[in-house]
């Protein structure tokens, strides 16, 4: 593609920082002279554990590999690198983790840049105040969210829009590491500042944030490249063997979205009702006609995780056809035995509502649970997964131990005498603390940046100097 003056060129190396991309594709994309590199690094998809614990879903070494190539490329061209939802959940712990990796790379590669860190973790007192003011609104479906929920939460993050990125860019940041961010905001921020219309900027961002996911057949995670202009954008994967077609690009708005035509952002709604997708050549697509409807109120979505308890897990299997044919009744009798035994051991110290024993039966309905339409079991064996959840690891493990012993020897009418009815490959495993997502609400802030504190610093190799933001 021949570059023109009034376009913004964007490189997205991969859909998730740490999932990898081909260096050859990245080099081809750099030759197209992008105005910036953007990369999403997080999601709720790996579950509430990451927001709860502060850990990251992708291995540190894998994140460092991807970031090293991105940082070197961005500094070589002198263009900004924008990273959003650092370390999976984008809380303060994950932001610190990714900052550490970036500083390691700067030291080992001798890189110099102005670094902006944008925090997304929310102050509980701030949220309590907004809640009292009636400026926390539920989405659908939403769990109960009140002052007690805020108190119980391990961490709550806000999903930032484009504005905090734009503030960092305006402050001259070369490298931006942001906490939890709308995936699209990472890619829309700079084009919007340069006058690209919002329908074009947000729609291109929506495709870019997943890297090469929108090609016809992705072989491995890889790069995507876009040219954004006043009335359309072009999308192409730098690897010449990957093809974007009108159908593959149009289909991408379906992925992980409840509504394929209307995508809600902090500042408005991307409207794809009238989008047109045309083939430019056999691997490039031109998109036009996408609209953006500004919101009446600016909103920031919250994500929160709270600890449910500690968990121990027991795995076993059943091969006896007598037990398999009465598995529902067998499970119900077993649960009664477990509860009776817990009461015998703990009395009032551990009441029925203080713990939870969950049984998944693979070979019956382990995958779909109550939604499973197939009711008849044809398997010759079943896998049982028991999860005991309680206030402490010790109690959870005690209940898992009780479960094992009760399950092993639960009698059935067909056999007389002591049976061992469950095969366990090993004893229970301790999973540690377990978490749940506890909020699906938005906050109405006064200002798009008020929930997202920024820290600026100058990085020179191993040296880091703070700058007043």
């Amino acid at each position, binding site marked *: 593609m021949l570059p023109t003056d009034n376009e913004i060129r964007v490189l997205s190396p991969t859909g998730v920082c740490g999932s990898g991309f081909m260096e050859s594709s990245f080099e081809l994309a750099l030759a197209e002279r992008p105005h910036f590199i953007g990369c999403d690094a997080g999601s709720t998809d790996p579950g509430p554990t990451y927001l709860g614990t502060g850990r990251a879903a992708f291995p540190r070494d894998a994140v460092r590999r991807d970031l090293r190539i991105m940082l070197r490329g961005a500094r070589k061209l002198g263009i900004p690198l924008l990273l959003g939802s650092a370390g999976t959940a984008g809380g303060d712990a994950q932001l610190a983790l990714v900052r550490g990796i970036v500083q390691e790379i700067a030291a080992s590669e001798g890189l110099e840049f102005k670094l902006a860190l944008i925090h997304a973790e929310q102050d509980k007192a701030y949220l309590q105040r907004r809640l009292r003011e009636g400026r926390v609104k539920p989405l659908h479906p939403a769990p109960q969210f009140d002052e007690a929920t805020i108190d119980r939460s391990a961490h709550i993050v806000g999903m930032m829009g484009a504005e905090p990125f734009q503030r960092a860019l305006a402050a001259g940041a070369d490298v931006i590491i942001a906490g939890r961010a709308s995936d699209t905001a990472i890619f829309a921020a700079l084009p919007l500042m340069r006058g690209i219309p919002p329908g074009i900027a947000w729609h291109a961002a929506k495709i870019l944030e997943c890297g090469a996911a929108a090609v016809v057949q992705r072989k491995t995670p890889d790069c995507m490249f876009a040219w954004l202009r006043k009335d359309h954008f072009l999308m192409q994967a730098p690897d010449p063997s990957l093809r974007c077609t009108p159908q593959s690009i149009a289909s991408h708005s379906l992925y992980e979205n409840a509504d*394929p035509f209307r995508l809600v952002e902090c500042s408005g709604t991307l409207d794809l009702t009238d989008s047109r997708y045309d083939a430019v050549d056999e691997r490039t697509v031109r998109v036009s006609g996408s609209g953006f409807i500004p919101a009446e109120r600016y909103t920031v979505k919250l994500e929160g995780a709270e600890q449910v308890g500690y968990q121990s897990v027991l795995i076993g299997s059943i091969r006896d056809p007598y037990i398999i044919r009465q598995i529902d009744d067998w499970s119900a009798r077993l649960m009664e035995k477990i509860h009776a035994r817990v009461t015998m051991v703990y009395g009032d110290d551990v009441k029925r509502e203080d713990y939870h024993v969950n049984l998944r039966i693979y070979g019956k309905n382990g995958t779909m649970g109550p939604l499973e339409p197939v009711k008849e079991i044809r398997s010759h064996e079943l896998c049982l997964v028991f999860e005991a959840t309680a206030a402490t690891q010790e109690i959870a493990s005690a209940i898992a131990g009780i479960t094992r012993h009760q399950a092993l020897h639960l009698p059935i009418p067909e056999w007389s005498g002591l049976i061992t009815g469950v095969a366990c490959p090993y004893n229970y495993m301790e999973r540690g603390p377990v978490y749940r997502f506890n909020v699906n609400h938005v906050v109405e802030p006064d200002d798009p940046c008020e929930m997202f504190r920024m820290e600026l610093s100058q990085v020179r190799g191993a040296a880091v100097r703070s700058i007043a933001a």
Partner: protein
Amino acid sequence: MTTLAELARLIRSKNAGPFELTFDIMFDDEATYERVKRSGALSREVVATCYGLEPEEVKFFYCDRALAIKASIPRPYFQGDLRDSDGHGGQQYAPLMDIEIR
């Protein structure tokens, strides 16, 4: 009689955030897409029946440019709930495969 699985290029399910599940039924060519769309065999009501919901709880879309039909439902259990069995929501589409298309 042909099943939806035989006609579709891809039937998939996935989380749309931690609180919703979404289904994509995608086709290779316009004729097949139109055949399924016109048959009416895949509808908001059919999806509701498959997943034990009321029709008004199901979001349902025809995506002509993508040659795809899409439906979204509230998750039976929120992602990560103690009883949730499918953290990514990726294996909840099987009941749609057997829908018969005339």
